[in-house]
């Protein structure tokens, strides 16, 4: 299965990747290779097989509902590019 330019741009947008026009042709080839592998997987007869959600055959470990974390804001924010009044500042986004 081949991907169109539009498909590829949409995927890039979903993954928040900037794509130069010059990269598109090369990526189309690489994607075709990946999708070929998936086609191979899709061809396997999986009737009667329960879908696998995790590679480990174990159950989830749970924790008790206790507050165990202390305020580490100053340390976390020491590596943030920009903070103010305790908030992390980011480029403005409004939907």
């Amino acid at each position, binding site marked *: 299965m081949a991907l169109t330019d539009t498909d590829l741009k949409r995927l890039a947008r*979903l993954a*928040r990747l900037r794509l130069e026009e010059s990269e598109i042709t090369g990526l189309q080839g690489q994607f075709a290779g990946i999708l070929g592998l998936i086609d191979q997987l899709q061809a396997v007869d999986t009737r009667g097989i329960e*879908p696998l*959600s*995790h*590679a*480990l055959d*174990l*159950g*989830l*470990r*749970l*924790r*008790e*509902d*206790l*507050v*165990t*974390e202390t*305020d*580490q*804001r100053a340390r*976390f*924010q020491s590596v943030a590019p*920009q903070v*103010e*009044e*305790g*908030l*992390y*500042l*980011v*480029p*403005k*986004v*409004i*939907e």
Partner: protein
Amino acid sequence: MDWEVVIGLETHAQLATHSKIFSGAATAFGAAPNVQACAVDLALPGVLPVLNRSAVDCAIRFGLATGAAIASRSIFARKNYFYPDLPKGYQISQFEIPVVSGGTMSIELEGKVKQVRLTRAHLEEDAGKSLHEDFHGLSGIDLNRAGTPLLEIVSEPDLRSATEAVAYARALHRLVTWIGICDGNMQEGSFRCDANVSVRPRGQSELGTRCEIKNLNSFRFLEKAIEYEIRRQIELIEAGGVVVQETRLYDPDRDETRSMRSKEDAQDYRYFPDPDLLPLHIDAAWIGEVQARMPELPDAMQQRFIEQFGLSLYDAGVLTASRSMASYFLELLPYAANDAKLCANWVSGELSAALHREGLEIQDSRVSPRQLGGLLKRIQDGTISGKMGKELFDILWREGGEADALIEARGLQQISDVSSLEGIVESLMAEYPAQVAEYRAGKEKVFGFFVGRAMKASGGRANPEQLNAVLKQRLKAE
């Protein structure tokens, strides 16, 4: 054209846990920005989520309370999208196998009960908060809410009007607060609804194109937003237009919904099982243990109040509006010789009005069940009239104290002895001979005039029945 409205709700209930769903950070509301956001909530490299047992407990409670199926094995999935208040770039949610499936909610409309089917309820984490006020053209991010546990409860499209949708949301709110899994505080965002609304010609079986209205955090906005959206869709179709599937936002200031994003720009969330989290196993023993701790549910208690105490559906509904309301009523009953109707009237009347006036919840009532009970006892034995009771209630509310002591100190007892009443009546008759003559000439309306005057003369304390009897007898006599 006769249109049928079809509505389904998705409700996010914030679960009442102390710590977050996948980390040990606190969930308390109102903390300074980011002091309750730990390394896991911030998605720092190398951290792993560990599920909070209490959050699962809440989901089981909800499943049991709605007669739903609780999955013995459910899966956490990643819902992928980019937004600055979602540090991981994905929200941990459940997709293919949710913890709770099916179930029903009863709603009540004009005395009729309707069953609303639930699709599912799944566990997920909340995102942080973006503040778009001016930070030099930047947005401020507070991640205290990131990782707060939510139960997303999805209804089938079984609701047929804005009124039904609100009744369902209220019933759900009552249930989640009743079973203690959510504090229900809508101002703080602990309980918020998204509404899927569509219309179709009555009789048509396929659904119309729906629009989703996001983030309705009050019952009033829920109702108004749906009403607006129904009008908008019908007017659009009748004018020859087509409804486009999209997400809309309600603007309460202008009372309208506005397009937020259309289906073409709709996110593709690329769900997949989260490799950081193994399947969640819930065994029968765990469910049994939760079942053993369940309180009597509101619908069951409402039904019991109707059967056991002979209350109306409405009264029983008011008394089971919250668990604290029901406990107040049950505590009050024995003080008033188990006169359920009298207790119901006072709780839903004077007490509720006073609470409402001061914006208090019943657990913060200034008049305790014991105090109110003391008052009701004196109405029952005729010491005070219902009207005096209301005055006494106001005094109890404002100043506190005990009914008996206040009746004594302020002379609120009814005047029931015949000779005192006769004295009042006779002096009135002497004062108004013309009216006496009119009454005796057959003008019975004048009777009310005497009742009013006598009540006034007694300072409102005359026992109404006794007074009527005395008046009738005296006025009749030549």
